[in-house]
Structure formats: C-alpha cells, structure tokens
C-alpha cells in the first residue's frame, strides 16, 4: 500500500499475487495478456526474449505486480519514449465488488468497440473494481541505448541545455536533472562530471542516429563549457533504475512528492521547492524531468523525524499551492506511516469531482474498494 490515503474504515487486503499466469503472448502481433499478479520483471523478461518491451516502469519490478502498477499508473523516467501506463493497455478484465467479472477492449492494437473502460480502471487505485487481467501492446526494444552525464554548475545551466536539446529536436528517451543530494544517492554517474547539478540523457534507437545525437549534445556541452561523460556497460541501466526508484527502500517509505506542471513551469516549480524547503530547513533530494514538467522531491525517513507531522503537512500544502498556481498538481507518491492521514496525498479534488463521485456510486455503491484512499477520499 504505497500511494493513497490510509483507508477510512476497517479493511481487508486482497492479494492478487496468485493470479500470476501469462494468458497469451503473441510476439508477432506484439500483444500479451497477463494476469494482474504477474510481476513487471517477469513480464519484461518474457518479452525481452523476443526483443520486445512493455511500456511500464515501476520501483521494485521484482515485486511490483501489473495490477498494482496499473492501478497507480505512475509514469517512469522514460515517459517520453514509452508514453503513460494508460497508453499501453488494449484490453482489461476486472472484478466488481459484487463478484462479477467484466471485460472491455480486446486483444488487437486498434479497437474502438464500446467504451474505453480500461482508461477508467487504470489509475483509479482499485476504487472502482479490481483489475484481474490486462492485455498490452508491446514495442520493440531499442537496438542501441546510450546514457550521457553532463555536469552543470547550476540548475539554470542544466535547463538551458535541455532547452537547446528540445529546440534541436533530438529524440530523447529520458532526461533528468538531479541536484547534489540526489546524485550522492544514485550510483552510476561518473565522478569526473559531478557538479552541483547533473543532467542525464538517454538516447534510444538505431546506432548511427543515436551516435549523431550524442555528438550534437557533445558540441552543445562544449559550447557551454560544461563537462560530459558517458555511462559504460550496464551503468546506464543501473542509473536509470535508481532514478526511477527515487531512493525508495523497500519497507522503509520515504516522503516522495511529485509536482506536475507544463514543461515551461518546471523551473519555477523547482525554484519554489528550494525556497520553501530552505525556509524550514528541510532540504529534499530534488530531481526534475524538464521535458515533462515534473519535479520530484524526496525526504528520507531520518529527515522526516526532524519535524512534526503537521509541519510536513503544511510543507506539502505550500508546495501544492505552487504547483496549482501554475495550472498543475502535486501528488504525494509515498509517505511514511507516521505521516499517513496527516499529509494530503492528492489535494483538492478536480473540477469534475461530481462526476467522479457518481462514478464511484455506480461502480462501488457500498464503498467496499479502497474506501477513502483516493482523490477527495472517494
């Protein structure tokens, strides 16, 4: 139980790990149907044998199940290349609170038969129905992947470089800007490029195309007199796994918040994060995904004990105001038990909340599924 408020009434935990079969895998059609309890690692392993991947990323892939990943639907660092979790699902089967099983979609990549129910269930934190099986479209694994590390003296230097990369229309598979605290926790980045900020870039694709793009980045870096190194061997993979995990340690939840705005507001959001956390001397590990408008802040369990739960709640509220004033939102992706029920995980419900409430009423009138855990305590 990571994401979401604690349940607001006594609860039972449903374990879907026994639903762990692969029901169909057609490598030629690039589709696969799996039960909800299959872990992401098992799934990726199976399709990787055929040079394919499923566009999902999750911390603890050896434990994280497809059902869990789809109900939280959080994107990873490769969102630009892979899309969002909701984009991957072409068919779904769910169990309703009355025990009925229903399906929607199908097993073909292009299909508009009936309402796109998968969109409703994916990302609903299991509050409408329990996902028992899903069919995915798969994509080819990139033939080449290269990771570049660029040391930057300041956040602005990193953002300026990112902007040039965008303007040059390079096809970046992942782009993350990490502060010094984050760098200290993440393995892989070459010591020779460690500066106050680190811009990490990954390129996927045809070897020649990737080489040309790396070359273009190198000349931009030279012009800005920054320093650059490249990940070697499995270093790139390990680095991106760590970026994806955001310093999570299994069983020891930290406080992880994600602010989501438009790309142009990334800088402002990150600056606000630094200003607000400076004021209260609770500096987080900060990382930015400037191409997606995402800012992550991470406080360790030890750090969290240095302030009262109410202070954390106030901090989260202030950060959320900053994100909302840019037209975005802020979600608490992970929180230690001590803060459960104290910090507001989701913030004020969106304008369409009345429709969401009626949706909950239609699908789970007795509020049996994950009561109180989702947006607006649905």
């Amino acid at each position, binding site marked *: 139980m990571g994401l979401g408020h604690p349940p607001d009434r006594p609860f039972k935990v449903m374990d879907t790990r026994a639903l762990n079969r692969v029901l169909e895998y057609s*490598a030629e059609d690039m589709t696969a149907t799996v039960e909800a309890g299959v872990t992401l690692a098992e799934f990726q392993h199976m399709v990787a044998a055929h040079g394919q991947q499923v566009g999902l990323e999750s911390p603890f892939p050896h434990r994280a199940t497809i059902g869990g990943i789809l109900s939280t639907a959080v994107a990873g660092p490769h969102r630009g290349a892979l899309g969002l979790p909701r*984009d991957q699902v072409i068919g779904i089967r769910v169990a309703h609170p009355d025990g009925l099983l229903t399906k*929607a979609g199908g097993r073909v990549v292009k*299909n508009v*038969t009936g309402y*796109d129910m998968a969109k409703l269930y994916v990302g609903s934190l299991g509050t409408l129905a329990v996902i028992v099986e899903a069919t995915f479209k798969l994509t080819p694994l990139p033939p080449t992947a290269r990771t570049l590390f660029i040391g930057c003296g300041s956040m602005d230097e990193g953002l300026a470089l990112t902007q040039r990369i965008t303007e040059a229309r390079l096809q970046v598979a992942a782009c993350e800007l990490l502060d010094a605290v984050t760098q200290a926790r993440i393995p892989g980045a070459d010591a020779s490029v460690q500066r106050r900020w680190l811009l990490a870039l990954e390129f996927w694709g045809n070897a020649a*195309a990737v080489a040309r793009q790396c070359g273009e980045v190198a000349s931009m870096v030279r012009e800005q007199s920054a320093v650059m190194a490249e990940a070697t061997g499995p270093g790139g993979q390990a680095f991106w796994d760590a970026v994806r995990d955001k310093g999570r340690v299994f069983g020891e939840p930290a406080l992880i918040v994600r602010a989501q705005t*438009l790309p142009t507001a990334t800088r402002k959001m990150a600056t606000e994060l630094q200003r607000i956390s400076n004021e209260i001397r609770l500096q987080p590990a900060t990382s930015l995904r400037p191409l997606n408008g995402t800012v992550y802040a991470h406080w360790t369990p030890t750090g969290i004990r240095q302030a009262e739960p109410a202070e954390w709640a106030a901090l989260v509220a202030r950060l959320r105001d900053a994100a909302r004033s840019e037209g975005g939102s802020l979600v608490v992706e992970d929180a230690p038990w001590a803060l459960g029920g104290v910090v507001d995980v989701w913030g004020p419900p969106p304008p*369409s909340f*009345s429709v969401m409430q009626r949706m909950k009423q239609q699908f789970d009138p007795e509020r049996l599924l994950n009561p109180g855990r989702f947006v607006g305590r649905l």
Partner: protein
Amino acid sequence: MFNQRDPTSALIRDLQAVVGKSYVVHAPEDLLVYEYDCSIDREHPSIVVLPGNSEEVAAVLKLAARAGMPVTPRGAGTGISGGAIPVGRGMVVALTRMTRILDLDPVNRIAVVEPGVINLDVTKAAAQHGLFYAPDPSSQKACCIGGNIAENSGGAHCLAYGLTTNHVLAIEVALPDGDVVWLGDPTGLEPGYDLRGVFIGSEGTLGIVTKAVLRLLPAPETVTTLLAVFDQTDYASAAVSAVIAAGIVPAAVEMMDRLAIQAVEASLHAGYPKDAAAVLLIELEGLRETVAEQAQAVAAICEVQNARAVEVAQSAEQRERLWAGRKGVAGAFGSIAPNYYILDGVAPRTKLPEVLRRVEEIAARYEFPVANVLHAGDGNLHPCILFDDRVPGADRRVLEAGMEIMRVCIDAGGALTGEHGVGIEKQDCMAWVFSEDDLAAMAKLRPAFGADAKFNPGKVFPGARGEWEGSTGARRIMERALAAGAYI
C-alpha cells in the same frame, strides 16, 4: 418518459435568444443537410442548433433538458456509423461554428481548440512551428476535433503514433445537464479518475466536447515512402507481419488489393501496376539514419516475402502521387460501381491472410465484388462491397454479407470496429463480443456523466435503436456511401 420530439414555438424562441436567430434551423428543407453521416442510415432532426461557444452549448442543453427534447451532438457528419444521426428525431446540436484555435503554445507543444476545428487545420496551424497533430483520419480535411474525440479516431499513421486518445490531454465538456467541466488538465496527469480517457471514444453519448487541449509533436526529420507490389494478397499480408516481426514499426502500412488498385488506376493513375494482386504503401518517419536503415530492411523483407517489385518514392511529388491513390480509393469506387458499403473490422495482423480469404469467399457467395483497403499495419481492414441498389434486395444482402465479414473478424480474435465506431450500424453485434455484464458495466458511465436516455439516444448498446424508436420507423436507405475524393 416525457419525450418532446418537435419543438414548440416557445422553445424555438428561447434557443434563438441564446444562439441568435440564424443559428436555429427548423425549416424542413434546411434540416435535410443534417440527416446523414455517410452511413446507411438517415433521419432528419426536428431542429438543429448551432451554438457559438461553451456557454451557449450549456444553455442549449439546459433548454433541451427542460423541454424534454432528445439531443444528438454533431460535428462534420462524416462518422459513417450513424453516431450523429438523431434516432427518433429531436434536436441536433451542431458544433461546426466553434472553429477557433484558442491557443497554440509551441514551447509546451500544445494547442487549445474548439470542437468544430477541422482536424487538418490543427496541423496547418502548427506547421509554422515545425509541429503537427498526429491523428490523421483519412477524412481529415472534413472531420472535426469534437467528432475525432467522440470516435477516438485513428488514421493511416496511428500505427506509430496511436489514436486520438494518446494525443488529447484534456477536454472541456458540457455535461448533458448543461454543467460545463474540464476533464483532465493540460499536463495530461490530473489526479483522479481518467474521465478524459473514458469520454474519448464514447461516441457522443456522454456529453458535448466544447474545448480540447491537444498534444503536438515535432515534425519528423525524414519521411520515406515505399511501394511494394505483390502477385498474391497472401504475400502482401505476410510481408506486413514480417516487417513488424523484425522490430520495425513504420509510421504507416497501407494495403490495397486488386480491385482497389484497378479502381484507383481507372480514375487517378497513381502509378500502381494494374495487374498486381496487392500493393503495400509503407511510410517510414523519423531520424534519417533510422529511416535509411529501416527502408533497406523493409525492402529486403518485402523481397523475401515474394514482392514482385519494391519502389522507393524519389521525390515529394512521387510520394504524394502514391498517397493520392490511397486517399482517393473510396471516390474511385464510385467510378466502377453504382454503390459501395464500407466495412471497418480488425484482425490480429498475423490473421490477415486467413481473414482476407474468408472475405473473398463471403463476397463470392453473395455474388458481390469486394475491394479491400487496409490499414494493414494494425490489422484494420476496410472491405468495400460494391453493388447496385437498383437490384431488388441488394441492400439487404449487402448488409448480411457485411455482418458475416464482421463475424469473421471477431472469430479471428479481432474487433468489431477499429475506427468508425459502433453507433447505429454495429450495435446489435456488440453482443458477439461483450456479455450482458460487460455491457452493464459500460452502461454505468451514462448515469455517472448525467446522460439519461434522451442524450444521443439509440446508439452503441444492442437494441438501443429499436427501443428508442419504438414504432416511429426511421428510413433506412442504401446510397453511395461517400463523396468523391473521400478516402477511408
């Protein structure tokens, strides 16, 4: 249920006060334009209202609800499956006046548009910034964004880029009761249920889109188009599977069979060999090194799969000519048959050879010629049955043949519709794919969005049309389905 099918003069006055006199259409001869969506069905509305902005849409919906009048939203009327046809008459709300591009933000790569904006106009506006809007239904010169969202439209290039749902970040919607709400936000990641996602593809049965935030993509660095020519359709289908199996996802893989080629060459002269059994039009987009490598690989694969010839377009004109054939194919059918009925089905790519053989058999049994046009890369087939509606009983037999073909798609593990939607046309086939429980779960969306039986009645669900119409007896006429120049 209180169901007002004809407007009272008081309602007409109230509507005129909201949208202006000239935007309320109720003279019978003026209503005719709104009776048709390129499908088999026709029914003219009792009244058509053309609001000019979100507030007017909301006010119109409130008036309709108060008057107990059924409402059907309508865009450009190219839907083909009957979604915009007002079953049992009532009010049509046409969004064609709402054609403003409200914002185009090249840095964040988003556009905010009204629902009546024509699909192609988004790309035209974005082009000055080197951006484009990816979903490209073949009707893109005519159809509008509201209709695209309602149908979750695809297009030739959705093989690589995905459907409308992958490119719409947020929508402003007037709910059936007249409340206006945003579903999603421009970041595409608003916390809460993905109401944006379930609304897209709901075929105009949950509310009216009044604004949309669209994602724009940078135009590809390079585009290469290949024409591969085959002496058997099976070879062409096998080549499609082989390309995908090689880990190559082209931007588009289109297929046309012998009859389609002959129709095109008779009127458009695109340069397809007239004696070929099938051609594939394969387009690769992206970085130049990738495209060059893939073009070579695709050509080699086609040759291994018995292509008689593989030609690479050498100039922009040649590429356009190859595409003009593909794009003009529906219009070209008009030159070889009095009428045609276009089907839209999906099969797993690997089952295409088998499915196409069955299509052939069925058409032969019914004694109709059939021309096949496919978005082959994603298994989406459009068999076009050619016929003459002056022959007594032909229209009924065409529909029967069509249903048999749909059945073949389903039996192959495919889908009832890949892009045209269920609408009126396929509602009774829904029971082939979905159980009553599946359909009941879907039906829950209607009350959740506040849509009662009077909001776009008679659509999507099995028997919906019959139930709603009762004995009003709509006309069902088989006509030449599409305008010249249209393509599917």
